[in-house]
């Protein structure tokens, strides 16, 4: 048998790794990829709960998360391209023109 | 023979099936290159290879030896991991999709039923599309890791073309799915057995999907040719005759892997076309039990051969599209046509099945 706590432990580990990468990395595309990692960890939690409650709604929600992540990735990468064209840098520390 | 547990026997049979399929695929790819060279040559009023073996039949063996023994040139400053990963990925993915393709009916030996299919997933068709989607990476990564302008642009163009035509590929199949009601490939073939009956009268047309989904078939086959980067959609590859494609900086065995993966993709796509639209292994079956088991496999291979011959025939005949014409064709013509096909099929299916 596969206990639910093991599935959730994997989900939380991936989420914390993604969150750590989101905070520590400087390249904006890598930061975006850590966001996708966090979304996947949440998907895993949804599917784990769907299995243990015998309910398909969790899988439906994971499906919508995947679709919304696709839309978000498209728009986010377009923003990154526009940003690169204006700033010529992919480092988030260079996006500080609103600093005092 | 020692007594195996049930799982052990299943594992052994599956391993044997995998070995047979991989061996047959490798031989088929090798002799597909021979067939292509001969057919294209005869279309162009010349002989193909004829020196090595009778009518050039040992030419693939000679080519294989050449590839193995050639010097392996690796440019400096390539991204080593990605550079070596790309051809292996291409070949692995090309062979992975054969795992769900059914070649014939099942037969019984000693009370065990063995089917001519490595595994029958109930999302088998989606599995093939998943593997095709991952195949885009091998091209893009090959182009990028070569650290050179022309492979990068060739790789990006080729992968953009592949992902554009994958959409139409998926849409073309939806009509077939609505009629078969299942994503399992064996289920789709089973839904095409028998003959078409109109108002109770038996026309002697086989119950194949080509007769009710002609537009779907055309969209599917066109998108498949574009997805496998074959003529007339092979500008990213034809550039290699001029300047460079994504496999410029690859030599000997790695280039051979790209080459093999292209032919393996051709075979996979033709297998799918037979299964989805031409009834898979259905054909006249007669005779003793051994013949009844082997004849469906023969019919499947015969239909597969017809598709591959058609691919090669087109290579010898058609000029290639320019890149912007190619992309416009995929997005502005094929995709709307696929959508219209889905719309029309769904109306007809709903009308027929309504009480």
């Amino acid at each position: 048998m596969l206990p639910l706590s093991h599935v959730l432990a994997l989900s939380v580990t991936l989420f914390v790794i993604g969150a750590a990468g989101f905070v520590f990395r400087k390249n904006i595309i890598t930061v975006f990829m850590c966001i996708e990692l966090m979304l996947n960890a949440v998907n895993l939690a949804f599917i784990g709960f769907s299995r243990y409650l015998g309910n398909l709604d969790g899988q439906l929600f994971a499906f919508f998360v995947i679709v919304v992540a696709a839309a978000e990735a498209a728009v986010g990468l377009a923003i990154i391209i526009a940003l690169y064209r204006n700033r010529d840098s992919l480092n988030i520390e260079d996006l500080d023109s609103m600093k005092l | 023979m020692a007594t195996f547990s049930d799982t052990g026997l299943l594992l052994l049979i599956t391993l044997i099936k995998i070995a047979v399929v991989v061996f047959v695929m490798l031989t088929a790819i090798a002799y597909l290159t021979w067939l292509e060279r001969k057919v294209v040559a005869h279309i162009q009023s010349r002989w193909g290879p004829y020196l090595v073996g009778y009518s050039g039949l040992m030419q693939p063996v000679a080519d294989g030896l050449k590839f193995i023994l050639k010097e392996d040139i690796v440019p400096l400053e390539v991204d080593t991991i990605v550079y070596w990963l790309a051809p292996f990925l291409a070949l692995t993915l090309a062979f992975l999709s054969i795992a769900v393709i059914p070649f014939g009916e099942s037969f019984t030996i000693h009370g065990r039923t063995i089917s001519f299919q490595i595994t029958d997933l109930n999302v088998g068709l989606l599995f093939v599309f998943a593997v095709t989607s991952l195949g885009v990476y091998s091209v893009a990564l090959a182009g990028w890791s070569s650290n050179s302008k022309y492979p990068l642009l060739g790789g990006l163009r080729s992968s953009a073309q592949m992902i554009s035509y994958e959409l139409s590929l998926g849409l073309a199949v939806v009509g077939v799915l609505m009629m078969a009601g299942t994503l399992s490939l064996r289920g789709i073939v089973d839904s095409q057995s028998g003959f078409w009956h109109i108002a109770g009268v038996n026309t002697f047309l086989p119950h194949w999907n080509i007769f009710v989904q002609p537009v779907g078939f055309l969209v599917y086959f066109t998108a498949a040719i574009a997805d496998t980067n074959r003529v007339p959609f092979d500008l990213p590859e034809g550039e290699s005759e001029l300047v460079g494609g994504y496999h410029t900086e690859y030599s000997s065995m790695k280039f051979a892997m790209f080459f093999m993966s292209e032919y393996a993709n051709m075979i996979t796509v033709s297998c799918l076309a037979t299964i989805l639209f031409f009834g898979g292994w259905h054909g006249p079956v007669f005779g003793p039990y051994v013949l009844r088991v082997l004849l469906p496999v023969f019919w499947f291979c015969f239909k597969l051969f017809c598709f591959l011959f058609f691919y090669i025939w087109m290579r010898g005949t058609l000029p290639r599209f320019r890149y912007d014409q190619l992309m416009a064709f995929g997005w502005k013509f094929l995709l709307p046509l696929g959508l219209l096909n889905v719309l029309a099929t769904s109306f007809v299916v709903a009308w027929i099945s309504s009480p």
Partner: protein
Amino acid sequence: MPVRIETNLVPLFYIFGALAVVAALSVVAQRMPVHSALSLIVVLCSLAVVYLLLGAEFIAVIQVIVYAGAIMVLFVFVIMLLNAGRETPSHRSRMARWLGAPLVAAFLLEVLLAIWKQFPAGASHPAAAVDAGPAAIGHLLFRNYVLPFEVTSILILVAILGAAVLAKKEF
């Protein structure tokens, strides 16, 4: 004949879970964005296998087709077009880096402890296996969840328009 997942294939969960964790660490730790993208693809594919083991066969294949096969292709294209190279070292304080890793580890341990307390290993049994094939998901999607389905189609249309406008060269 389908093999019952609980019997022989549970060790596969641990194997692919470990692979996912190692690949996730690689996403965060690699210097070049292309290597991070490749590691993220490995994470997505191993998570797809885990979904299969949890009985979500349709979602597993959709994850590979959409997430690993389309979204990550978009990422890889953008990385290649913008020619993203190695990351330059940070200008920020070193103390943040030395303090950060232990804090992350402490946070992870705390949440794992909370899960272990809340869902003890012996007490949870999976409910009866529900058929999660495409037909069942389609039934739910087009009956109970038809409104989110239609709204996501509008969402995707808006995303296409937004991405096309944002990435244009000149206005």
